[in-house]
């Protein structure tokens, strides 16, 4: 294109008063634009640019909320989805079933409502209230009665544009999930404040309240106040893809069992005890078992470890602990039935000093002294698996399932404790999952990228000449395979129950899972851990699938 054309175009865009430059956008609009960009972009660099752009232009109060939201600090849900659906249906005068039908096609209630409520013709393009206004209103709503909630929400729907309404609903229903890792956000922040990413990561973790913290405080160059509860960012491992023998000398590596529990940090500072989960939830109150540590641990200590169901020196099936995780109050009965223990992996702070830069060997030595001194039966060192050769370790790994372990962790003895998921020094080496062949019997449309496609399936095994359902699985197929199964479902559905279609039992899949436990909630009597589709068995007929007896045998073997 010629220069003249380009200039003309520029002028045209300007005269049309297009809002390309960010500062003219209202707070909520800027945030909606960020969410849109993050959601659509598939390239990390584009996401980074979008975040940097946002943090450069947004209202400082809004920025604090975005940091909070993207690091898992959502406002508490004050209305439920039934209320939202009912109010929306009422507002636009649609039958509830049609709203539900729309919801199952869109796959997201917030978006459905955003699309259904008509946009006001006179919605100003550049004005609008900031994000923090709405979030602060949400906090007020916690104490409001239903009528007050409804009034506020209907008024907000009316004054917001469709895109803003989407993020508003997401915040309101506390279902915000953005495709942004904490690491990416930290990197974006590091471009606009004069702090190292690791320092930012540490600052934004822990127990701070976005309602009372301002941006300068949170990310000031000097640490002005010290939050004693603050955990370190966890160091996470990738699954090893190559042969372990390529890792080099076995002597340079430490092997430990990989446990399937709740990764957590135990912090004792200022004479207070804090227990954090990897999801950055403060869960001190949920594990009264650990209160003994408050007296016994020296001050200025941070332990990284795994919280596991543990009794009489044995790790139990994770399913045991799951029964008490979701509860608000842990009862005595819970404590007896599902006692928790900690397997200590690492020591991050000692005597108030951050020791993450030391080598794993040095940290382990210090950890061993610390744990041995405690003499508490429910605080154990995560045992080291001794090995001289990779072949030997390969054999040892086979025993993992017998002790309720998921496999092995391989850590370079010279490694520092890094931030986030990193390759090179730490690897997880899981045992192969259990598998079973099953037939698909129900299908339901998915959400997000899979909206309007049948991607959520229920599977059954044979029980005599009948079929019995035993699990759902949502992942494991390629987009192309999902499209093929979707087409099959549309052609072969037998009945429609709301969003669910019963499907001719014809397609056979291999289902992989990490564990199995008895359950009275499922017809088959079992519950699987992490079920997913491992492959589509186009070579198998429905007559050739596994049986409920096969499942029971697995339960017998691995379901302790």
């Amino acid at each position, binding site marked *: *294109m010629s220069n003249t*054309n380009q200039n003309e175009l520029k002028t045209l865009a300007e005269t049309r008063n297009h809002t*390309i430059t960010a500062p003219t956008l209202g707070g909520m609009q800027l945030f909606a634009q960020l969410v849109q960009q993050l959601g*659509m972009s598939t390239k990390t660099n584009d996401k980074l640019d979008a975040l940097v752009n946002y943090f450069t232009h947004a209202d400082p109060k809004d920025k604090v909320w975005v940091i909070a939201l993207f690091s898992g600090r959502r406002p508490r849900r004050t209305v439920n989805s039934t209320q939202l659906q009912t109010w929306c249906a009422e507002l636009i005068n*649609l039958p509830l079933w049609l*709203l539900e039908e729309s919801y199952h096609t869109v796959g*997201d209630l917030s978006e459905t409502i955003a699309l259904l409520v008509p946009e006001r013709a006179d919605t100003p393009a550049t004005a609008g209230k900031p994000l923090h206004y709405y979030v602060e209103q949400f906090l007020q709503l916690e104490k409001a009665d239903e009528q007050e909630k409804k009034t506020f929400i209907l008024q907000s729907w009316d004054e917001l544009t469709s895109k803003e309404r989407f993020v508003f609903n997401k915040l309101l229903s506390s279902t915000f999930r953005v495709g942004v890792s904490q690491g990416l956000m930290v990197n974006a922040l590091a471009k606009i404040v004069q702090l190292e990413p690791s320092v930012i990561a540490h600052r934004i973790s822990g127990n701070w309240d976005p309602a009372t913290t301002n941006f300068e405080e949170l990310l000031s160059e000097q640490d002005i106040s010290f939050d004693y509860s603050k955990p370190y960012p966890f160091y996470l491992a990738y699954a090893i893809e190559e042969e372990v023998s390529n890792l080099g000398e076995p002597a340079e590596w430490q092997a430990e069992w990989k446990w399937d529990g709740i990764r957590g940090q135990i912090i004792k500072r200022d004479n207070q005890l804090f227990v954090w989960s990897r999801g950055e939830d403060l869960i001190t109150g949920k594990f009264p078992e650990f209160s003994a540590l408050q007296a016994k641990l020296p001050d200025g200590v941070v332990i990284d470890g795994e919280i596991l169901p543990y009794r009489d020196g044995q790790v139990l099936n994770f399913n045991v602990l799951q029964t008490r995780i979701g509860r608000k109050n842990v009862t005595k009965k819970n404590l007896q039935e599902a006692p928790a223990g900690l397997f200590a992996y690492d020591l991050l702070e000692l005597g108030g000093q951050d020791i993450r830069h030391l080598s794993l060997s040095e940290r382990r030595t210090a950890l061993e002294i610390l744990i041995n001194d405690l003499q508490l039966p429910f605080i154990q060192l995560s045992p080291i698996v001794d090995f001289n050769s990779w072949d030997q370790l390969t054999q040892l790994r086979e025993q993992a399932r017998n002790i309720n372990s998921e496999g092995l962790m391989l850590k370079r003895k010279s490694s520092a404790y890094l931030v986030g998921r990193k390759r090179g020094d730490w690897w997880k080496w899981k045992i192969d999952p259990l598998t079973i062949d099953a037939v698909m019997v129900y299908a339901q449309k998915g959400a997000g*990228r899979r909206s*309007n496609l049948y991607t959520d399936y229920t599977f059954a095994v044979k029980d005599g000449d009948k079929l019995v359902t035993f699990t759902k699985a949502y992942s494991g197929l390629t987009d192309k395979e999902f499209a093929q199964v979707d087409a099959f479902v549309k052609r072969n559905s037998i009945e429609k129950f709301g969003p669910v279609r019963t499907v001719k039992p014809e397609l056979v899949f291999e289902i992989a899972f990490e564990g199995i436990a008895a359950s009275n909630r499922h017809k088959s009597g079992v519950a699987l851990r992490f079920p997913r589709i491992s492959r589509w068995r186009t070579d198998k007929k429905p007559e050739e699938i596994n049986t409920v007896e096969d499942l029971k045998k697995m339960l017998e073997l691995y379901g302790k």
Partner: protein
Amino acid sequence: MAQVIEFTDKGLYCPAGQFYIDPWKPVDKAIITHAHSDHARPGNQYYLCHHDTKPMLQLRLGDHHYQSIGWNEPIYMNEVKVSLHPAGHIIGSSQVRVEYKGEVWVVSGDYKTEDDGISGAFEPVRCNTFITESTFGLPIYNWKPQETIYSDIRHWVHSNQLAGKTSVLIAYSLGKAQRVLNAVAEVTGNIFVHGAIWNTHQVLTQAGHVLPAVIRVTPELPKEVFKGNIVIAPPSADGTPWMKRFAPYSVGICSGWMQVRGHQRRRNADAGFALSDHADWKGLLETVKATGAEKVFVTHGFQSAFSRYLNEQGIAAGEVKTEFGAEEEEAVENPEKTDE
């Protein structure tokens, strides 16, 4: 008494006139609503369509026995009075009005109610029975006025230019591509098109339609010419190696499905523009009401939801299974040559 139009395994059939409308299996006599491949299939002995549809059928289906008529020009087939009426979907697209012994049925084909300035303005046709599509028959599908969307597209092109990127717009080669072309021709003279769109463009301009000039993308063109400019390509080209020559580029998909984020994410589009050649929810409802039909049959799309809603509104409606489109996908085009 037999219905004026029956639903058979070959397609919609008028026994009194002995013709089919958009049959999906070869028949003797076919009336074709428009030239998209799920409605206009090869192998029929005789085709009746609108004048503007005929050249497209010749391009896509080759030589056959074609007869073409204008809108509102009734002809008789046996004792059945047949006429075509603008459907506003793409160039030449028509609704088929079938009258037999005083009873009027209308087959909508695909239609949109907003006048795109190219396809002819949609006219609702009074009838006793209306057979309507329902591709976007859910209330989440409410289109913005096309001028707003065009302005969004131009705005997007502009930001791509600022970022030094080529704008690749994905649009169906017959219908959407011409609309998009008109919209972006306002801001630039150099518009490049994929071979499939070029072919359609040639046929349409030869038939007398006035369209902005385009440049065909050929292997001889040096890569530099695309920089900062606009390329229009059909969905079949999206994500293929053919696109590599435009790098760095940004992809914008123009389709009603882009209304929903998930669909946009699935297509990996950098931008989605909910620009459709189908009626949205309101358009469908208004049309059904405007026809005054006592009975409505709902075909391809969200048949069950739309017909249930009509019934609740006091309009007797039923679902009909057809083989138009995939249930919820846009018309699949003929496998078109990518020219290279």
